[in-house]
């Protein structure tokens, strides 16, 4: 796949400890080869994943964010992924308004036994992110502190209605 040929992109994964992290372990134990771009952050439950973690990662320049939890009804904490599903779906549908490509964020469910599924998810998501290319980055430097004449004009393309 193209993912392994080109430059690595920055993909952050948030995985629940009980299912998906285990699923990624299972994939590892089974030596299911995967692209190397993804870095996994382990959390106890998908219900612990604040959508703002995802936004923070994207604002900080992540090219993709992948969240995975237990399948609905299989949550170790009974309800965590039900809350997560609402939060994550809300974020995903909202992202378009921010100008961040919603395709850069995905969430899914992988159980501890689904090593193969995990391999598939990682491979597909990485492929998708590589197809999108590096994410455009918001400026992290304020104008006021130092004036950098070389910096692009702050006034970018305007909203047609707001001038």
């Amino acid at each position, binding site marked *: 796949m193209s993912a392994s040929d080109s430059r690595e992109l920055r993909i952050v994964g948030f995985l629940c400890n009980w299912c998906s992290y285990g699923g990624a372990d299972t994939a590892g134990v089974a030596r299911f080869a995967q692209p190397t771009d993804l870095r996994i952050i382990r959390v106890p439950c998908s219900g612990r994943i604040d959508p703002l973690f995802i936004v923070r990662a994207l604002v900080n320049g992540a090219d993709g964010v992948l969240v995975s939890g237990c399948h609905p009804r299989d949550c170790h904490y009974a309800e965590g992924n039900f809350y997560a599903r609402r939060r994550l779906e809300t974020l995903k549908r909202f992202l378009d308004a921010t100008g961040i490509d919603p395709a850069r964020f995905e969430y899914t469910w992988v159980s501890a036994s689904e090593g193969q599924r995990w391999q598939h998810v990682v491979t597909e998501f990485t492929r998708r992110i590589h197809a999108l290319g590096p994410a455009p980055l918001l400026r992290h430097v*304020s104008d006021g502190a130092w004036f950098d*004449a070389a910096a692009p004009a702050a*006034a970018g393309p305007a909203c047609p209605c707001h*001038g």
Partner: protein
Amino acid sequence: MDRFLAASQLTALADDLAQTGPVLAPIAEGGSVVFRWYRPGMRIELSRMASTSPKAATFPQTEPLLAVRREGEAKTPTVEATLPPRSRTVVLGCRPCGARGKEIFGPVFLGGVHDPYFARRREDALFMAVVCTRPETTCFCTSVGGGPADTVGVDVLLIPVEGGFVARSVTAAGEKVLAHALFAEAGARSAEADAVIAKANAAMPPQDDFRTAPEKLLARFDDKDFWERQSAKCISCGACTYMCPTCYCFNITDDDLGLESRRIRTWDNCMSYLFTLEGSGHNPRPTKAHRLKNRVSHKFSYYPTIHSGTIACCGCGRCIKHCPVGVDIRAIVRAAQEYGG
């Protein structure tokens, strides 16, 4: 010295000045007019007062103070002051009140203690202020010592005349700028400019007399009811302080970047609960009444008391005009003055 700048040359002047150093100018953007670091292509708008103040020229919202690096296996830190690079900074098209605002900083930042960041920016800044020909409903510069053609803190006064501006130098640095080729002879326009100034002064509403404010406000210090009523509609945001040309409260925070860290100074807001919250959980200014009291009293009582009567307010009216709920600082001071006779 008087020179003339054709209205049509304003952009050219900005473009040219921006080649050799930062230019801060009121820019029309998204329906708003705000001070921005000018880059060619931006539209300078002088017909109305910018909602933000030009204080970023001397006191930017974010000022990096220190950089700390840990290097080598021992990771011994080295600390370095990150002073702003030296370069002439022009504030083009502020109002006289905006230029006056930064003068409030002087006695504090260059008084008992010398703040090298402010000092350097102050030294490098050149203020070209436009005379106000007509007061807004929120303007009260004349009540706090200023005026529509006030020259305090101004290097060049731009006086609107037919077809452009008479550029009148106030300081030597200002005079130097006027040598720029885009300026023409002022000639007879100087007289026109004088008339504009006279008319502008005459157009100002009657002055408030705030001389008794310091003692009257202090006398109200313990009047909880007074301050609760005055602050009832305040929503404790920072629009007033961040718009204000004279507000200088700041925060200092560290950003941890692993081996590197930095310490930055950012505008802070005395209307915020966290501003004075102590580690123990105690807060000397726990309610918005306490905080509004401190804000108003600082400007109209404490500061004048410490600094020989100067009111820490330039009368630009931004805090009134842009307050989401229309808190009017003039009315509060008047109320304190009138209270109890």
